[in-house]
């Protein structure tokens, strides 16, 4: 434990690749928590956005620390594009659900047919 702490505290103070990865792991876990526990469809969407941002941090961190190429950043651009179109489609669906069922509680809209 002593040796672990004497190694861990100086590691915390100089930022390296793992710091960014751990931030993205925390963000990913929070997003999963939001997706699993929220009952409002829009808050589930916010959880999905958190997960996508965590993935993007990973892409860009590996692109920076893994060498001098920009492939990770190109992948991150496509993630952002898909996140934008996903948000547009999902909100259109949520609005439609609200018009039909007068609620966006995803537990109440589990039937396939009226």
């Amino acid at each position, binding site marked *: 434990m002593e040796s672990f702490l004497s190694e861990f505290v100086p590691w915390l*103070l*100089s*930022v*390296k*690749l*793992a*710091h*960014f990865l*751990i*931030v993205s*792991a*925390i*963000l*990913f*876990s*929070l*997003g999963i*928590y939001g997706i*699993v*526990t929220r*009952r409002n469809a*829009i*808050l589930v*969407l*916010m*959880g999905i*956005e*958190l997960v996508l*941002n965590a993935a*993007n*941090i990973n892409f*860009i*961190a590996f*692109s*920076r*620390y893994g060498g*001098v190429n*920009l*492939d990770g*950043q*190109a992948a*991150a*651009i*496509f993630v*952002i*594009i898909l*996140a*934008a179109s*996903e*948000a*547009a*489609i999902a*909100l*259109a*669906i*949520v*609005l*439609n659900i*609200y018009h039909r069922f007068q609620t966006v509680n995803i*537990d109440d809209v589990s039937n396939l047919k009226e």
Partner: protein
Amino acid sequence: MELFDVVFYVFAFITVVSAFIVVFSRNIIYAAFSLLFTFFGVAGLYVLLNADFLAVTQILIYVGGILVLLLFGVMLTSNVINVDIKTGTIQTVPALVLVAIVAGSLSGLFYSTWKDVSAPETSVVTTTPALGKMLMTTYLLPFEIASVVLLVALIGATFIARRST
């Protein structure tokens, strides 16, 4: 502890704390507005990682586009007059256990595997020209597919969201 480390911890703190508020706040409006700070914090992390173009794109698309869309969704689907803007949660305890296991194992994995990887020296000052060239050469096909996907998403969203007459 250099300036880089201090700035990293400032942005990481903003990101993580506001993400906590997004996930745990019982008020949808608070959650939506703290998502704004999460996106800004992530954009700051991108700047630290030499991704200037992506940081600006993050702010333009996430804050200017997706967050505004989400706020529109909140406004259009919540019963603001009855102050029915609070929201419930389900299965919090199993979810907390699961998420704690996921976060702990991922962090432990990252720490044990990549704790000593430090940044290589780079002379890249701005990434925008290089990224533009990549999108037009190496990633031309994904770029075109992405444009078609955006078009389809636009048409599909307007088609789904309009009131059927």
